[in-house]
């Protein structure tokens, strides 16, 4: 008998993928002034699709294929980072992460409500 349904595993996976994306975006902000650097982002939907069926606790498939390089206008030193855009993406990703975390917590609470009754 599977105790935790597929919604819970989907939510778990979304947490992992969101964190992978957060790492990439943090790298963009850190390199906002590095000459020649092009910002990277993760195509979230594609990465999530590729991760379907992965069991809880198993490592996710590599995300190389889903990393997009940005086409922003380069500055004089060849750097293409738009810091404002990067910060907004970072904030949004963090909010979505928090939402997934809350959702999975709530699902488990519902299970517990029944178990404790």
């Amino acid at each position, binding site marked *: 008998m599977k105790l935790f349904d597929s919604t819970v595993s989907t*939510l778990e996976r979304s947490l992992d993928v969101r964190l992978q994306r957060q790492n990439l975006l943090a790298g963009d902000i850190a390199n906002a002034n590095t000459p020649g650097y092009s910002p990277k982002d993760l195509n*979230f939907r594609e990465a999530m699709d590729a991760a379907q069926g992965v069991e809880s606790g198993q490592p996710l498939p590599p995300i190389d294929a889903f990393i997009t390089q940005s086409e922003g206008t380069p500055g004089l030193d060849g750097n293409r980072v738009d810091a404002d855009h990067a910060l907004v993406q970072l904030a949004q990703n963090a909010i979505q992460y928090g939402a997934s975390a809350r959702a999975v917590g709530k*699902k488990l609470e519902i299970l517990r409500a029944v178990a404790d009754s």
Partner: protein
Amino acid sequence: MTSVENSFIPVAPSSQRELFKGGEAADDASFGNEMIKAIGEVDKLQLQADAQATTLANGGGNLHETALALEKAEVAMHVATKARNKVVDAYQEIMRMSV
């Protein structure tokens, strides 16, 4: 089972009157059917919450809708559990009565 205490069932007053029309309660308004309908509601809310959460996990959806759906599902589950406990208690009390 028309003499069961009815104060714990979270249904609207009008359906209560219908339930306990003395011995002539219509069959489709019996207590058992009401319970089944209520459980169906709770289940539907769980499924809706699951659907919303899955959409959220996949990058779509709407934050407040998802949060509401989850909260409703939880509340409904609590109410259903409480109702079930009361029914079990009532049943046990009846069984204890000496005939």
